């Protein structure tokens, strides 16, 4: 089971330098900056595209490359460059804006709606004639009305307020579970990568083993058997369960980064001056491995949110009185034939959010590491 999912390809170490006669002259490797940040990757020709720019193109050899020495001072501007590249990516910017709007709306929206219309997410109208599902933008008498822009559900509750309230939970689950996975993954991967040897073997073998487990089944068992005690407890269970199963890839990424970084001079320097091992790991290695970690974390958020929605849909996730986009969709499906808006609004809001987060993650990856080409 020690095999990685992608088996190792034995590649010969070849001086693949295409022998630049001037290398010796250029007196420096792409040197590390005082902060120890590796220099920015060379700027490669890009086809000026938006989606999934794969910037490196088969131009003979490195013929169109900016010479390496030009990056000597570029280290500190790594993040600035990445940011610039990100802003050039229209879909990523679109994703960023949409996510920001939805996040703001979720946080502030319910309060505003309450002021404007008096509806909270769980307000059931006192008048029993209003305890019905009205279509969007429709008043009880069938005329146009702004009161319920997304209509009401079968209990007469305002769907917009419920979608925004659900957004709070969904986004919180996404963020907190990702945070949990980050903490576990980084600790695990950094420890394995830095200590190496037997510890590394053991830790990564455990990861390999866990990879092969259909973990969603176990999450279902966990939530089904331990859940149902109180709605709040259920949500915490979700954070923990989803975080606990999402850290595997993170651990691998961090380990890879750490191994490639740990032999560089600035680590040796830190060690030579007597800095302790944990301090080296967290002060020096973790910050340097950050790029891919940020990218992967951004992509973990939508995937965790999707899992949450999936579990809520099955009735194992968020429970009343709380709601999430998943549980709202689940309710909506019951009435899809008659009141399609009950599914469409929470479902589409969630899909739009995930869509945007995925584009943002893709954009970040292209911006931070033009060379990293995973899917």
């Amino acid at each position: 089971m020690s095999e990685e999912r992608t088996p190792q390809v034995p590649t010969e170490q070849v001086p693949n330098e295409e022998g630049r006669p001037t290398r010796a002259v250029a007196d420096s490797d792409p040197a590390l900056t005082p902060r120890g940040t590796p220099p920015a990757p060379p700027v490669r020709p890009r086809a000026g595209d938006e989606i999934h720019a794969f910037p490196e193109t088969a131009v003979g050899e490195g013929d169109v490359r900016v010479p390496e020495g030009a990056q000597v001072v570029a280290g500190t501007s790594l993040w600035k460059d990445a940011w610039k590249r990100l802003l050039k990516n229209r879909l990523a910017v679109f994703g960023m804006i949409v996510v920001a709007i939805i996040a703001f709306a979720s946080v502030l929206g319910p309060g505003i709606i309450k002021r404007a219309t008096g509806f909270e997410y769980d307000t059931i109208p006192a008048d029993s004639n209003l305890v019905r599902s009205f279509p969007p933008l429709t008043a009880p008498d069938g005329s146009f009305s702004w009161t319920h822009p997304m209509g009401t559900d079968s209990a007469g509750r305002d769907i917009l307020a419920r979608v925004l309230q659900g957004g709070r939970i969904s986004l919180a689950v996404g963020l907190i579970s990702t945070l949990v996975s980050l903490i576990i993954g980084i600790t695990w991967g950094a420890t394995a990568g830095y200590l190496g040897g037997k510890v590394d073997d053991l830790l990564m073998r455990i990861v390999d083993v866990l990879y092969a487990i259909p973990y969603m089944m176990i999450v279902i068992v966990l939530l089904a058997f331990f859940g149902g005690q109180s709605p709040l407890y259920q949500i915490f269970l979700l954070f923990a369960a989803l975080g606990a199963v999402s850290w595997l890839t993170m651990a691998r990424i961090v380990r890879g980064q750490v191994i490639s970084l740990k032999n560089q001079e600035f680590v040796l320097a830190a060690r030579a001056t007597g800095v302790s091992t944990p301090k080296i790991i967290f002060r020096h290695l973790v910050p340097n491995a950050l790029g891919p970690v940020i990218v992967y974390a951004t992509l973990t958020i939508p995937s965790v949110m999707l899992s949450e929605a999936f579990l809520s849909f099955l009735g194992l996730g968020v429970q009343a009185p709380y709601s999430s986009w998943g549980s709202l969709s689940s309710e909506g499906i019951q009435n899809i034939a008659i009141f399609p808006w009950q599914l469409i609004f929470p479902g589409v809001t969630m899909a739009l959010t995930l869509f945007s987060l995925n584009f943002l993650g893709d954009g970040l990856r292209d911006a931070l590491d033009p060379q990293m080409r995973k899917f």
Partner: protein
Amino acid sequence: MSSQNGNLLSVRDLRTYFETEDGTVRAVDGISFDLKRGETLGIVGESGSGKSVTNLSVIRLIQSPPGRIVSGEVLFHGEDILSLPAEEVRRIRGKRISMIFQDPMTSLNPFMRISRQLMEITQLHLGHTKEQAYEHAVKMLETVGIPEARARADSYPHEFSGGMRQRVMIAMALSCEPELLIADEPTTALDVTIQAQILELIRKLKEKTGTSVILITHDLGVVAGMTDDIIVMYAGKIFEQAPTRELFAAPGNPYTKALLKSVPDPAHEEGTDLYQIPGLPPDVAHLPPGCPFAPRCFRVEEICRREFPPFVQLNAEHFSLCHFAAEVYAESSAEREAKGGVGR
């Protein structure tokens, strides 16, 4: 530049640009040269000088986007390859003009048996049957000196060493007895001892078949013994063009002189440090207004930074892109006299 008659290949004012984030990179910017049948031309330059792009342009292998052949003519037997339909170009590629690439490690398809990769080319161009193609493949492998060629023909590339793979590449390139072989840094990725063997092999095969060769390299030492003419490229331009002997004996361009000085020469006095050209190859996307080599040049003057240098004809076959071409040429000639005789 000589007339077109008798030329196998004439490149005229070739320009290949790349659109990058950083702006337009003029990787090849107005290159012209001729190659006669049976002759060998060396193209020398640092990486980024555009020498590989030049030759990829010749057989239209530039990826587009981002690359684009902006203008120029590539006359092969008087026919302009750049204006031929793609179909016709494919019939030339591999059959009449073939290429050997720099890195034999990655240039062979790792998923395909060597025999198949060789057979493919003769089946395509010579209409060989499977059996014929296989026999031909084994024969080619023997020709390039693969021991036990028949037994090893069905290996995968990763089972071969770097030198062996480059031999396979050569076998592949020569399968259809092309009229022109373009060898793009064929020895750069190889060990020094292997380098010599591969060069020797190319030379031998060239003599046997009468193929014309364009040898691209960054290493003047490599071209010295092999070529009839040499082109020195820098920043997408031809800096100097001359017959090999002449170029080594009396370089007319400061860049060439600097390159020559940086070649380790066993004949040189021991104890002297190897010369290094100061600075870095230029950022081709942002060239200075004057001479692109000016920032690194040892005899730079004010005009060099301001004005683009002229392409000066020094004698019948010797050209140099420099404001001071004549002076440099004269100095070189004088030095040669002083040393007493023709170098190499």
